[in-house]
C-alpha cells in the first residue's frame, strides 16, 4: 500500500509544489504550510509572552519596587496571560492539528482549505491589535486575563475597546479552525478508518473542537456585553443600572473552564501517541481513553463556579461545584493510569519526546493534585487569589500543555523536515526546562499557602527567599527556550536523514508517508484495515 502512496506523492511534489516567495505563505491553502505558520506564530508569541513573564519575575526578585511601576506590572500580568493562552498554547495545538490530522486520517488536506488560510491570517492582526494597546494612552489591558467587570468596563483604560475587538478576531479564528477540524475528521477519513480506529490525537482534537465551538461564542458574547456597557449605555455588569458584576464571572467562567480543557486535551492526545511508541506496546485502554476524554469535556461545562467560591454562593452551590470538580479527577485518573500501564513492562527508551511525555505525566499529576486541593471549597477560601493558584495552573499549563506541544514537535519534527534534530542539544533543552520550571514554580506553592497574594508587584519580607529562587528558575526556563529555537532551525536546514518510519515503534498513517512529508499527501486515500 505505502509504495503506491509514495509514487503518487512524489508525482505531486514535482508538479504542484508550493509557490515561491511570500505569496506561498500569504495565499497558501496547504495544511502543512498553514500548520507551519501556526507553529511559528505560536513560538513567537511564546517568546513574547515569556519575556513579559521575565519582566514580572525580575520585579519580584526582591521585595519593594525596583524596576517597573505597579500600573505596568498589571499590564504585564494581563498581557502575559492573554498572549500565552490565546497566542501561544491554542495556536500551537491548531498548528499540530493542521499538520497531523489530515495525515493521520488519510485525507489530502483539511476540509475547508481557504477558510483554513483565513483562520490563520486573522491571528497576526488580532495580536498586533492587542499588542498595540500597550503603546496607547492609558496603557494596555491591566485587569488580569480574566478581565472581570467592572474593572474591565467602568475602570478600564480606553484601549479596552481594541482588546475587545482583538478577542473577537481570535474567537472567529478559533471557531473557523474548529469547524474545519470537525469537518475534516468527520468527513474526510480514509475508507476503513472508523471513529474507533482513529489515533487518539485525532479523537482529543475532535472533542476539543466541539468544546471550542461551544464556548468561544459565549466569550464573544461576554466581550460584546462589555462593549455595550462601555459604549452604548447598557448595564449588563453595572450594578447601578440593575446589572450584576457577578454575572460577568459566571459568563466568563462558563467559557473559561472548558477553555482550560481546550488547552490540555490535545496535549493528552499527543502524549497518547508518543508513550506507546517508546514503550513499544499499544496504548493501554484505548476505548477508556476516548470515553475519559469525552467525560472530561462534558464535566468541564458544569464546574465553572469553582473559580468563584468566594463570591458568596450558597452552601448548596458550593457543594455541587466542589463535588462536580472532584469528579473530574476520575476520568483524568483513568488517563494517567492508562499511560503508566502502557509503560509498565514495555521496552522503554528515552528519546527526547518520551522524556517530555514522562515529565508531562509526573508534573501534570502534581498540578492536578493541587487542583483537587483548590476544588475543596472551604480550603479554597484560604488559597483563593494566592500564589498557590499561580503554582497550580502553571504546573498544568507548562509541563502540561507546553511540554506536550514540545514533545509533539520533537516527535514529528523529523517527519516534517526529513532530518533528525540535534539529540544532545534537545536533551539539554529538556533538562534545563525541567529543572527551570520546577525551581520557578514549586516554591510558589509554599508562598501561596503562606498567604502571598497573586498579581502584586511587591510582597511582604517573609516571602523574599522563595521569590528569589522562583525568579532564578524562571530565567533558567526562559533562556533555555532559545535552545529549542536553535534546534528547530538546525533541523530545518539539515541533519541526519531519517526514514519514513523515523521511530521503530511508531504506528499510524503519517509514518507511511516519506520523510519529509510530501507537499501533497494522500491524494488517493489509503486503505485502512
Amino acid at each position, binding site marked *: 500500500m505505502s509504495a503506491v502512496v509514495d509514487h503518487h506523492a512524489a508525482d505531486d511534489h514535482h508538479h504542484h509544489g508550493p509557490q515561491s516567495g511570500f505569496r506561498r505563505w500569504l495565499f497558501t491553502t496547504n495544511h502543512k504550510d498553514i500548520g507551519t505558520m501556526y507553529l511559528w506564530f505560536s513560538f513567537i508569541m511564546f517568546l513574547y509572552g515569556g519575556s513579559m513573564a521575565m519582566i514580572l519575575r525580575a520585579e519580584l526578585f526582591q521585595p519593594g519596587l525596583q524596576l517597573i511601576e505597579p500600573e505596568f506590572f498589571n499590564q504585564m500580568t494581563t498581557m502575559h496571560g492573554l498572549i500565552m493562552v490565546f497566542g501561544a498554547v491554542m495556536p500551537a495545538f491548531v498548528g499540530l492539528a493542521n499538520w497531523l490530522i489530515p495525515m493521520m486520517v488519510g485525507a489530502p488536506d483539511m476540509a475547508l482549505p481557504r477558510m483554513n488560510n483565513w483562520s490563520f491570517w486573522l491571528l497576526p492582526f488580532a495580536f498586533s491589535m492587542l499588542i498595540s494597546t500597550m503603546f496607547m494612552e492609558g496603557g494596555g489591558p491591566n485587569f488580569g486575563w480574566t478581565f472581570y467587570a467592572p474593572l474591565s468596563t467602568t475602570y478600564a483604560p480606553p484601549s479596552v475597546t481594541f482588546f475587545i475587538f482583538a478577542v473577537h478576531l481570535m474567537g472567529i479564528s478559533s471557531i473557523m479552525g474548529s469547524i474545519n477540524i470537525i469537518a475534516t475528521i468527520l468527513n474526510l477519513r480514509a475508507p476503513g478508518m472508523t471513529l474507533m480506529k482513529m489515533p487518539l490525537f485525532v479523537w482529543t482534537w475532535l472533542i476539543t473542537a466541539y468544546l471550542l465551538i461551544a464556548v468561544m461564542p459565549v466569550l464573544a458574547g461576554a466581550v460584546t456585553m462589555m462593549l455595550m456597557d462601555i459604549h452604548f449605555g447598557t448595564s449588563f455588569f453595572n450594578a447601578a443600572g440593575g446589572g450584576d458584576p457577578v454575572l460577568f464571572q459566571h459568563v466568563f467562567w462558563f467559557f473559561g473552564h472548558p477553555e482550560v480543557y481546550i488547552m490540555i486535551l490535545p496535549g493528552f492526545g499527543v502524549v497518547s501517541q508518543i508513550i506507546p511508541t517508546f514503550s513499544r506496546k499499544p496504548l493501554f485502554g484505548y476505548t477508556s481513553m476516548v470515553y475519559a476524554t469525552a467525560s472530561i469535556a462534558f464535566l468541564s461545562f458544569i464546574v465553572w463556579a469553582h473559580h468563584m467560591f468566594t463570591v*458568596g454562593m450558597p452552601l448548596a452551590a458550593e457543594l455541587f461545584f466542589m463535588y462536580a470538580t472532584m469528579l473530574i479527577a476520575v476520568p483524568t485518573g483513568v488517563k494517567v493510569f492508562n499511560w503508566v500501564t502502557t509503560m509498565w513492562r514495555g521496552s522503554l527508551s528515552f528519546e527526547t519526546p518520551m522524556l517530555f511525555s514522562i515529565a508531562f505525566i509526573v508534573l501534570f499529576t502534581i498540578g492536578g493534585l493541587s487542583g483537587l486541593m483548590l476544588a475543596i471549597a472551604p480550603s479554597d477560601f484560604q488559597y483563593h487569589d494566592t500564589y498557590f493558584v499561580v503554582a497550580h495552573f502553571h504546573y498544568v499549563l507548562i509541563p502540561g500543555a507546553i511540554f506536550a506541544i514540545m514533545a509533539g514537535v520533537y516527535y514529528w519534527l523529523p517527519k516534517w523536515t526529513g532530518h533528525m534534530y540535534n539529540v544532545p542539544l534537545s536533551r539539554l533543552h529538556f533538562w534545563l526546562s525541567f529543572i527551570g520550571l520546577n525551581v520557578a514554580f514549586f516554591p510558589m506553592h509554599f508562598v501561596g499557602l503562606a498567604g502571598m497574594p497573586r498579581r502584586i508587584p511587591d510582597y511582604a519580607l517573609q516571602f523574599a527567599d522563595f521569590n528569589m529562587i522562583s525568579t532564578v528558575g524562571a530565567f533558567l526556563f526562559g533562556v533555555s527556550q532559545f535552545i529549542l529555537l536553535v534546534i528547530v532551525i538546525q533541523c530545518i536546514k539539515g541533519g541526519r536523514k531519517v526514514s519514513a518510519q523515523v521511530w521503530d515503534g511508531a504506528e499510524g498513517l503519517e509514518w507511511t508517508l516519506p520523510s519529509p512529508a510530501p507537499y501533497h499527501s494522500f491524494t488517493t486515500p489509503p486503505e485502512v484495515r
Partner: protein
Amino acid sequence: MEEQPKQAELARTIRRSVLIVCGMFFFGFALVPLYDVFCEVTGINGKTSGERYEGVTAGKVDESRTVRLQFVASTNAEMPWEFRPGEFELVVHPGEVRDTVYLARNLAERDMVGQAVPSVSPGLAAKYLHKVECFCFQQQPLAAGAEAELPLRFMIDPEIPEDIHTLTLSYTLFNADRAAVRNKTVLAQQRN
C-alpha cells in the same frame, strides 16, 4: 459519482457546526435573563424583590423569637453623597411591620439623582425580608446641598428559618443622573 454524497455530507457537518456556534452565541446572552430568573426563584443572590410587598396580614406576629436586622449604607465611587442608616440595628419579631429611615445628603454643587440598590446577607434569607415601602423602589432626586430622610417600612416573614438570627441589609447608592435624564420632571416637581 462518489463525490456528490461526500460534498453533501460535508455541507451538513458544516451547517450543524455553524448552528452550534450561533446557538451558543445567543445562549451567552440568554444567560443574562436566565441568571436573573434563577436568582429570583432560588433567592441565592441576596437580591430582594424590587416590588412592594402586599401580603401583610395582621396578627401573624411570631412573638416567640427575634431577628436582629443590621443596616449598612455605602455609596458608589461616582456618588458624592453622604448616605447612612438612621439606626444601625433593629431587633424585630418575625411578622412585625417596622419603620426606619436612611439619611442622605447631596454634597455636590449640582442637583443629582440617586438610586439605591439593596443586597441582603445571608443571601438565602433575602426572600424572607419583605419591603412594604422602600426608597429603593424609586430614584431619589436631591437638589444641591439638600438633605432627605428616606423611609423604609419592612417585615420579616414568619416563615424565616429558625437558624437565621441576624440579617444584614445593605444599600449601595448609585449615581443615576444618566438614567434620570429621561424624567427630569421629577426634580422639577420636587423643587416646587
